[in-house]
């Protein structure tokens, strides 16, 4: 079956070439081999679940940022159970899903790992740092999902590539389009995830949906 298809593809390609058409880049041998054996392709895997599972899951799970942060401060386990996820074993921190709305009070856009700081409670001080790429730190989106699990991957390398694929996708889909100028003072609305921060540090929020309005 597949050899028949391969043969037809060659015939079509030859016909196109004969007709003087421009030949579109064909997959390399490696790519062909990978798709043939159903090789590990994290970008495809993440792309397939993004709209159908990832965004709806976070949208459903997310609490208002101030509520999530307040509950995490008073009762971390309760906040985790309600808004968060973590692996059953090991010592990874909770990763929370949250809906963040507020005013941008600081913008660092020169670094490759650019971010804006957002005041969510109106006191003029930053409550969260939102990563706006292109370099996104950590694996918060992957770690916030209760339907993906390290144990289903061959090893840490594939698990890491999978984690990065979420960042790559959100970068292309959401963050690249974001204007970078005069962000301070604008209003930000986002849905996303952040790992429980270390003491004294701002939550490092990774958005899956983001709007910035004047």
């Amino acid at each position: 079956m597949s050899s028949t298809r391969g043969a037809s593809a060659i015939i079509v390609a030859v016909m196109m070439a004969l007709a003087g058409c421009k030949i579109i880049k064909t997959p390399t041998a490696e790519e062909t081999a990978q798709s043939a054996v159903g090789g590990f392709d994290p970008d495809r895997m993440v792309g397939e679940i993004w709209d159908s599972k990832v965004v709806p899951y976070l949208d459903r799970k997310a609490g208002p940022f101030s509520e999530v942060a307040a509950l995490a401060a008073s009762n971390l386990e309760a906040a985790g159970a309600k808004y968060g996820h973590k692996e059953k074993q090991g010592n990874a921190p909770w990763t929370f899903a949250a809906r963040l709305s507020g005013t941008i009070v600081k913008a660092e856009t020169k670094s490759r790992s650019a971010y804006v700081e957002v005041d969510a409670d109106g006191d003029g001080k930053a409550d969260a740092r939102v990563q706006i790429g292109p370099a996104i730190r950590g694996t918060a989106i992957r770690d916030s999902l209760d339907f993906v699990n390290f144990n289903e991957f061959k090893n840490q390398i594939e698990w890491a590539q999978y984690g990065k694929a979420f960042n790559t996708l959100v970068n292309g889909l959401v963050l690249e389009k974001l204007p970078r100028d005069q962000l301070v003072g604008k209003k930000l609305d986002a849905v996303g995830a952040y790992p429980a921060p270390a003491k004294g540090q701002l939550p490092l929020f990774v958005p899956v949906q983001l709007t910035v309005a004047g």
Partner: protein
Amino acid sequence: MKLTRRMTMAAFAAFLAAGSALPAYAADLIAIITPSHDNPFFKAEAVGAEAKAKELGYETLVLVHDDDANKQSQLIDTAIGRGAKAIILDNAGSEASIAAVQKAKDAGVPSFLIDREINATGVAVSQIVSNNYQGAQLGAEEFVKLMGESGNYVELLGRESDLNAGIRSKGYHDVIDEYTELKMVAQQSANWSQTEAYSKMETILQANPDIKGVISGNDTMAMGAIAALQAAGRKDVIVVGFDGSNDVRDSIKSGGIKATVLQPAYAQAQMAVQQAHDFITTGKKPAEEKQLMDCVLINSENADQLETFALTN
């Protein structure tokens, strides 16, 4: 009740040993197999595991495989032959070790892996490993900051057969490669070895005197690199390691190496023994086989709190 049962078992074993040619079964033995203790990281694992095992009332058999898969296979045979109830293993290669762990399983001896995973699940009971990717990203972020987001640098890689060498390198590059003004001028394996890192660093430095930083896959190689750099009078070069050894802690405090990433080696080994104990006594497995332990960045701000692969408060 439990004591009675154990005594009955012991009596039975003694009877078997006395009355037949069967090998004498040690009552409650845990085998602890790691790479060479020359690297303080592996020593800390073995010490941590041994302390926990003794605390729980086990005898221990501490062995080293020197990253030799054949030797590891023989040691597994030894552990099986000695009637170990469990094996705590920091393995000698993510592919090559699968067969060895399977062999132990087939002989009825469960394995609890620490530090390094194997490319298979369902063979070991537990695989408790540092989150090397997360740790490498922490180290790389600090490195990028120290480098001021620009300049030439060198990467020292670990042993190729060890998955951790690859995952740390990937973690480093997923961060560093985002900065186009950071240029890697040399990338070489020093096989986790301090002496090898020293000689590799000497050679690299001759070919590339214009380097500004060195990022290393572990602490022993970072120690080798800093020694070579200091011998060449290059105290300006930024060195970042991975492991959180006391040697690197002391170097950080004296202004040598700038940062490292702590793997909770001692805690990991103890956790593995606890899980082995639970499995031996109740037959209960941990909820998940593969378990990740997050790493912590160590620099001049918190180096004081570091002692034998654990942070004190």
